[in-house]
């Protein structure tokens, strides 16, 4: 209990819905994690700057706008540029299966498509934070 996993939950992109991000934020909190919620319309630069200051273990992004192929790799790239390559980056939301191999190649550790039970995400984070 003394060292909860710290997760930055962000909502990149220009669309105005953050329901998905809020659902995952609550699920992670209920699983005992410390969630830093940054709100809507975050640029990759804002997300990375917050991740550095908050020294999080995980950046979890929910994205609906269709711009995942540019935004998610950009976050990984900026984190690496800061030397923060130990941060686990995961994505969720409306992401076509066909795009997943490309995202993984770009350093997104895992992608959770709609309908994935939150428990799967929680377990994935628990297992993989330890390995990083």
């Amino acid at each position, binding site marked *: 209990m003394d060292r*909860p996993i*710290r997760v930055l939950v962000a909502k990149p992109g220009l669309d105005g819905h953050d329901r998905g991000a809020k659902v995952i934020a609550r699920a992670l909190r209920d699983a005992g994690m*410390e969630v830093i919620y940054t709100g809507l319309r975050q640029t990759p630069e804002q997300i990375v700057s917050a991740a*550095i*200051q908050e020294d999080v273990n995980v950046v979890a992004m929910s994205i609906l706008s269709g711009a995942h192929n540019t935004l998610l790799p950009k976050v990984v790239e900026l984190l690496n540029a*800061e030397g923060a390559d130990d941060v686990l980056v995961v994505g969720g939301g409306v992401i076509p299966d066909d795009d997943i191999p490309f995202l993984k190649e770009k350093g997104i550790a895992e992608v959770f498509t709609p309908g994935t039970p939150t428990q799967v995400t929680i377990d994935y984070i628990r297992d993989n934070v330890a390995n990083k």
Partner: protein
Amino acid sequence: MELVEKLLSGNKRAAARLITLVENKDPKAFETLKEIYHKSGNAYVIGITGPPGAGKSTLTDKLVKVFRKRDKKVGIIAVDPTSPFTGGSILGDRVRMSDLNLDPGVFIRSMGARGHLGGLSESTQAAVKILDIYGCDYIFIETVGVGQSEVDIVKTCDTTIMVMVPGLGDDIQAIKAGIMEIGDVFAVNKADRDGAKRTAREINMMLDFSKSDWRPPVELVVAIDNKGIEELFEQVEKHKSYLEESGQKEVRRIENCKNEIVDLVQQKLMDMILDKSSKEEMINKLSKEVAARKTDPYSACKLVLEKLRTT
């Protein structure tokens, strides 16, 4: 230690990592703080407190921008002292501070209670020292609530801004007791709503009984519209000058250090008393005996103290 050198050179990641270590109660981090403590004390610490949802984060965002215009380096520690029983938390203060995110002269850190009692003010105070040494000129501590937790946290501040909103009514009565000592400057936020002037009047009436040389001012602000923020800034600077010129700043800081030492001792004593291996067992056993009237709480207390002394 490499981390220290990086911190001294103003490296963000080093500051962030050291705060993580103190939050995790890593003994090495406190060893590090011992070494560098003498370099702290330069930052001016401002507390922002008040009821949930009063607009503290929005106000902090706007007020910090005024300090940034004067080229001051700013640290913000957003503390959530509420501690749900799962131990997890959602820290959402950054949502209102998105613009500050990319400003290289601002460092924002969110801290949760992590289910333990007392430990939060220890972590907060350590984080203040770290951001101070990192090079912040001003450090803001935002904390919600009107209970003991926030009293503990504002004990570390030079100036505390109490954020109120119109129509608190009975709430003002309820927090009256603690309010005078806590607030150095009062902000009635959401002054775009009805009743702001009346709330300001009620606060002013209470403050008329204040015996201190410093009479806390009450400012009307509309944080979301950036109204009244410059005036609030002026009041903070006035209070700062008052503290500095009257010598009260030194007095207050000594008092804060005293509180910190006492808190630390208390915390360590609690850790010792509730030490899983032996003493907690002893207390559990004594509790049963006291409940069964085989002994009394006064003698039990004496026994525990004796045991503490011999270990």
